[in-house]
């Protein structure tokens, strides 16, 4: 009885607790519903609790719709100011909470945030649909568009008007009712299939495991074995039956996740096991079971083609590319095929190099796809002899940060001051104020560099506050998140050269977000087309590998000695290693993506296998390499937003190699004139002009591919 009373008391107490909590979250104490009086309007992270998000999101969406209604129902005739500028001003609260949430849900997440993310995704999707499909809103935009010749609009305003209108049109605003109904129907099917594709892929990836005994671990290093043992233990913990528990006892588990598979393929001396794991990876979604993606992929491609045709485009690729820097499938194919031949030739040389090692070892087999990681590593060691461990002491995080700060200082006169009195979301996140040459405030840069268990893998840039000049000068708060190894004990964090490149890359994105100087926030920073926005990031990478710059920051953290020339030389030579493979697998996937999205709705195809085989045979892909993603696990294009867009990475690479070549030609990597052009025409402009125009203003001509071939060692100069 006593116990019962106790339980009741607890329940009543906790119920009271939650109800007051909720009331609190919804009203005055919710930091999202208040003005932020923090320095530089950095979000007041210490006041934001998980329970604040949902109420703020709901209020934000409601407010946003009220604002949209006010625009639509404005009795005055539509003008640029009362429609487009008001649209820019709308959604402030929503954007405020969304920025914080989406950042923290990736960089400092917890089960509650992950759950919220799943809950919010359909709500937000429906919310934005209400705006895009708002006919009254489109009518006002269209009226202004029709009258544009007689309006006195600036270039930036003209671009905003055109982009906004286009977004409505591309959502079907100009179609008749019957067509709209058809599009809605297709979209529903596509959305259903996309979800199924992703779920199948997840099931297929999680469904395979290589269960090993301790006699199967030959060649593996201690760290890799420990991780596999840990994985088995995890499985034991999650096991529901005793039988299942026994299955994992004293075993080692490898999975087709990259972090598990690549080390195994590189190190294991058991060729049969390498084959098993690799085959499981490339067969995902292609196992003729209930989670097979072959038919789904084919149906998705056909539905997309059908929709594009309804909207008046030849194929889905045409529809997508209209908004990109490369405007037609022909231009994309042209770019990819220019790289394809040299990449494939190079890959064949790499196969021969590896075969030589196999023969030398006295084995009697031909190099197969699952041998690539192991034997390329052997070739790398023999040919380049670059000891990563010897390099790292020169690349402490603080040194590299100084290097990137110094680089932007020499290019644009920027200075960085670390701030210690600003509240951040995690003690590893550091804050700098970025100032311009004349000392004026440009923005806040947050760097969150170390890996931790509640951070997603990979590296990215994002922002907590955007830039706009619409209602006074508003400067941004930008963040870089990476996954560099955390320091051990009191030693500094030492980076690999790959980490250094990543740091410069993300810092380039950050510069794009910080130097931006546009009137309308929606066109600021990194808002441009996907095949352009990597350019400002990738071009900065080139400075990291300039010997002159490397020497300025890469000093030994203990002795202070400058990095020796011989090490730099080896480093730069090694960067061209295995490029045949990397480019071939990437280009094959890009071409496959383009093939899938240049079919017409009438195309006769049943499943993905035959289509893919034909596509790869056409370009002559060698059997030692599979495309980076095969059709049945190409989530970028069948479950994400990269359809007819996987080529974007290499297009940006053409731009950055060609762009940096300009500095080389000028004979000075800090050429003042070029640096100024790069800043005004690229980093400051956001998407206020067509990307190609911006590039041409900086470079003086259209991009050429030659520099990229040289950088990647595909111009025949690598031995």
């Amino acid at each position, binding site marked *: 009885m006593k116990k019962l009373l106790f339980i009741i008391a607890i329940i009543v107490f906790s119920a009271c607790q939650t109800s007051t909590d909720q009331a609190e979250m919804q009203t005055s104490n919710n930091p999202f519903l208040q003005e932020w009086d923090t320095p530089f309007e950095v979000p007041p992270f210490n006041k934001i609790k998980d329970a604040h998000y949902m109420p703020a999101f709901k209020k934000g969406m409601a407010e946003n719709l009220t604002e949209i209604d006010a625009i639509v129902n404005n009795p005055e005739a539509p003008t640029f100011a009362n429609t487009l500028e008001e649209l820019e001003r709308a959604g402030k609260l929503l954007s405020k909470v969304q920025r914080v949430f989406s950042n923290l849900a990736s960089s400092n997440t917890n089960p509650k945030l992950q759950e919220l993310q799943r809950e919010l995704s359909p709500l937000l999707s429906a919310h934005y649909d209400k*705006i895009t499909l708002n006919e009254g809103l489109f009518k006002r935009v269209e009226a202004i568009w029709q009258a544009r010749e007689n309006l006195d609009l600036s270039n930036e305003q003209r671009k905003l008007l055109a982009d906004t209108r286009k977004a409505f049109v591309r959502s079907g605003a100009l179609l008749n009712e019957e067509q709209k109904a058809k599009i809605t129907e297709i979209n529903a099917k596509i959305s259903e299939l996309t979800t199924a594709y992703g779920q199948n892929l997840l099931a297929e990836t999680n469904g395979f495991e290589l269960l090993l005994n301790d006699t199967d671990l030959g060649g593996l290093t201690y760290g890799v074995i420990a991780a596999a043992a840990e994985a088995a233990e995890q499985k034991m913990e999650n096991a529901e039956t005793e039988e299942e528990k026994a299955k994992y006892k004293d075993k080692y588990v490898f999975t087709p*996740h990259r972090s598990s598979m690549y080390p195994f393929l590189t190190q294991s001396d058991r060729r049969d096991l390498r084959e098993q794991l690799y085959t499981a990876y490339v067969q995902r979604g292609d196992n003729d079971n209930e989670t097979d993606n072959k038919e789904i992929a084919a149906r998705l491609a056909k539905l997309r083609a059908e929709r594009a045709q309804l909207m008046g485009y030849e194929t889905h690729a045409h529809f997508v590319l209209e908004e990109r820097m490369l405007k037609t499938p022909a231009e994309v194919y042209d770019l990819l095929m220019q790289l394809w031949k040299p990449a494939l030739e190079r890959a064949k040389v790499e196969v021969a190099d590896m075969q030589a090692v196999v023969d030398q070892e006295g084995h009697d087999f031909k190099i197969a796809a699952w041998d690539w990681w192991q034997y390329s590593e052997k070739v790398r060691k023999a040919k380049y002899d670059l000891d990563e461990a010897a390099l790292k002491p020169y690349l402490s995080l603080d040194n590299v940060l100084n290097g990137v700060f110094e680089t932007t200082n020499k290019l644009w006169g920027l200075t960085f001051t670390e701030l210690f009195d600003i509240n951040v979301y995690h*003690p590893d996140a550091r804050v700098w104020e970025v100032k311009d040459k004349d000392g004026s405030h440009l923005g806040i840069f947050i760097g969150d560099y*170390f890996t*931790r268990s509640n951070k997603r893998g990979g590296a990215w*840039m994002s922002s907590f506050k955007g830039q706009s000049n619409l209602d006074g000068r508003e400067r941004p708060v930008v963040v870089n998140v990476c996954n560099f190894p955390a320091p051990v004990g009191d030693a500094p964090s030492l980076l690999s050269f790959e980490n250094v490149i990543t740091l410069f890359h993300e810092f380039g994105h950050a510069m794009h977000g910080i130097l931006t100087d546009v009137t309308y926030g929606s066109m*600021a920073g990194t808002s441009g087309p996907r095949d352009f926005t990597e350019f400002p990031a990738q071009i900065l990478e080139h400075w990291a590998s300039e010997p002159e710059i490397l020497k300025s920051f890469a000093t030994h953290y203990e002795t202070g000695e400058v990095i020796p020339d011989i090490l730099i030389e080896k480093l730069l030579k090694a960067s061209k290693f295995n490029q045949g493979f990397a480019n071939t697998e990437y280009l094959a996937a890009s071409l496959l993506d383009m093939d899938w999205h240049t079919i017409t709705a009438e195309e006769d195809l049943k499943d993905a296998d035959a289509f893919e085989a034909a596509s790869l045979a056409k370009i002559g892909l060698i059997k030692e390499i599979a495309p980076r993603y095969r059709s049945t696990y190409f989530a*970028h294009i069948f479950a994400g937003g990269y359809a007819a867009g996987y080529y974007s990475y290499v297009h940006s690479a053409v731009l950055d190699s060609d762009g940096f070549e300009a500095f080389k030609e000028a004979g000075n990597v800090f050429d003042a004139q070029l640096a100024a052009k790069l800043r005004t025409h690229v980093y400051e402009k956001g998407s206020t002009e067509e990307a190609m125009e911006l590039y041409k203003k900086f470079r003086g001509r259209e991009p050429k591919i030659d520099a990229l071939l040289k950088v990647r060692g595909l111009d025949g100069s690598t031995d």
Partner: protein
Amino acid sequence: MRYLKTLAFCIFLFSSSVVFSHPLDELVILDIEEGQITFQNEQMAAEYKAALKRQRMRKLAAMTWQEKFLLFIQAGIEHIIPKGLDHILFVLGLFFSSLILVSLLWQVTAFTLAHTITLALAALGIVQIPADIVEPLIALSIVWVAVENCVLKETNKWRPLIVFGFGLLHGLGFAAVLSEYGLPEGNFISSLLAFNIGVELGQLLVLITAAALVWFIRKKSWYRQRIQIPASLMIALVGIFWFVERVFLS
């Protein structure tokens, strides 16, 4: 119309509010390719602690030596009150041994001198003794002085020497928390000194408080029976508990 939204509208409305250089859908793809995040609380707590220290060290590096000096005095005090409960109990153990000022002064001086020596030696990296040896011994030192208080009416003449020995142990304990807290690379010695001063201040504060509390009853006939012995017994019990905990339960 969900798909069209992602493709078209995100460029003009959405993308400005959530700008990922590697777009969000790519992160979802990463979830598939890399596996989902598993939350391991212990590991996360350890990571957080290490990150806090790094943050503190960065702040320190940007401070003047005067700022650091004040900060470390404060840290020293904090590591007695409230964080150094075992040191508080030890000092109280000394306090309840004798109300004769001279005797107390000798003991406290011996304790201070001893822990200053080992704190400095350990902070400089000259002496290194693992915590799982030092920590149980500290617990035992508390038991020792408390038991002695109950058994002996008058403090024995070797007491300052014994207390000196225990002081050496406590200094190692301070060094462990200080190394966790972190000493700045520049101004190492002055910060170490400041920390030590802080520890002495904290210790003094404990003694003054205890003295103030028993000031008016110290001469009562029942002081030893009702205050000195029960208090010492309590201290001894806590010490025993800590010893067991540190040896068998950690």
